């Protein structure tokens, strides 16, 4: 397997959905190719970093507005029911 080929299957390998035979090829390649090994590690780290990133806090005023709007819509919706 060449580095360029590995690149095309990077998603599947990292997501764990790759065919076992290809997986073996992948790992054989990485055992002998440090750059590819590091790229794969980097990609995993990148995804982890974003996945575990802190979500933004809702501005307090907005949170209050949101709940007011929901309560209002709720009573409108529920009053419409027979």
């Amino acid at each position: 397997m060449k580095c360029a080929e590995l690149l095309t299957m990077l998603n599947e390998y990292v997501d764990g959905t790759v065919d076992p035979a290809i997986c073996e090829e992948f790992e054989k390649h990485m055992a002998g190719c440090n750059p590819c090994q590091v790229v794969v590690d980097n990609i995993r780290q990148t995804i982890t970093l974003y996945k575990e990133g802190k979500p933004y806090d809702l501005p307090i005023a907005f949170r209050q507005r949101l709940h007011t709007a929901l309560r209002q819509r709720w009573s409108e919706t529920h009053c419409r029911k027979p």
Partner: protein
Amino acid sequence: MTNPIPLEVSDSDLVARAKAGELDAFETLTNRYAQRVYSLTLRMLRQEQDAEDVTQQTFLSALESLGGFRGDASFATWLLRIATHAALKVIRKRKGLDTVSLEEATEPTEGYDTIPHPEYIADWRQSPEELVRKHETQSLLDDALAKLDEKHRLVFLLRDVEGLSVEETAGALGLSEANTKVRLLRARLQLREQLTLTLGDPYRRVVQTHPPTEEEH
């Protein structure tokens, strides 16, 4: 007034209770997911007022269509679809587009052969777990995300940040699965490149000693 709803109550139980008329249940669901919806829309739209409007729209929409929610997908996925749809409408409006899908009819699916090869390759100095605790890491992540083409950023946000499947991501964005996968790859590689420039250990930088297309391993 009812007792506060305990944390362990599942989303599907809350949905059932909300459908039965319990406002508290719907409010609990809102509190569970508001930050997540807001964060997603803020990253998609990159403008606070728009993100607030879309977030509010999303929960109002969910409130109104709760009766039609069958539970085929998880509540979270359903909510994120509503949010994505609403955010895409804003994006299309900004661009003056009418089409429902972001995939322009004439745009060919990007190929794997034009994907740029990684250039700056180095082990990171710290683990993601260590980095996540640092305040300045978040702005680094957001800056890198902002540098992506919107079409790549949207796929990454839904697939990798929100954890939707490739199929769900493709569906939410109106793309083919094939196109979704290529865009995801581009996003991941570009983010890796950006982040490694800052987070990579320059003393452990690896240089490819042979052109990637030649040698067989």
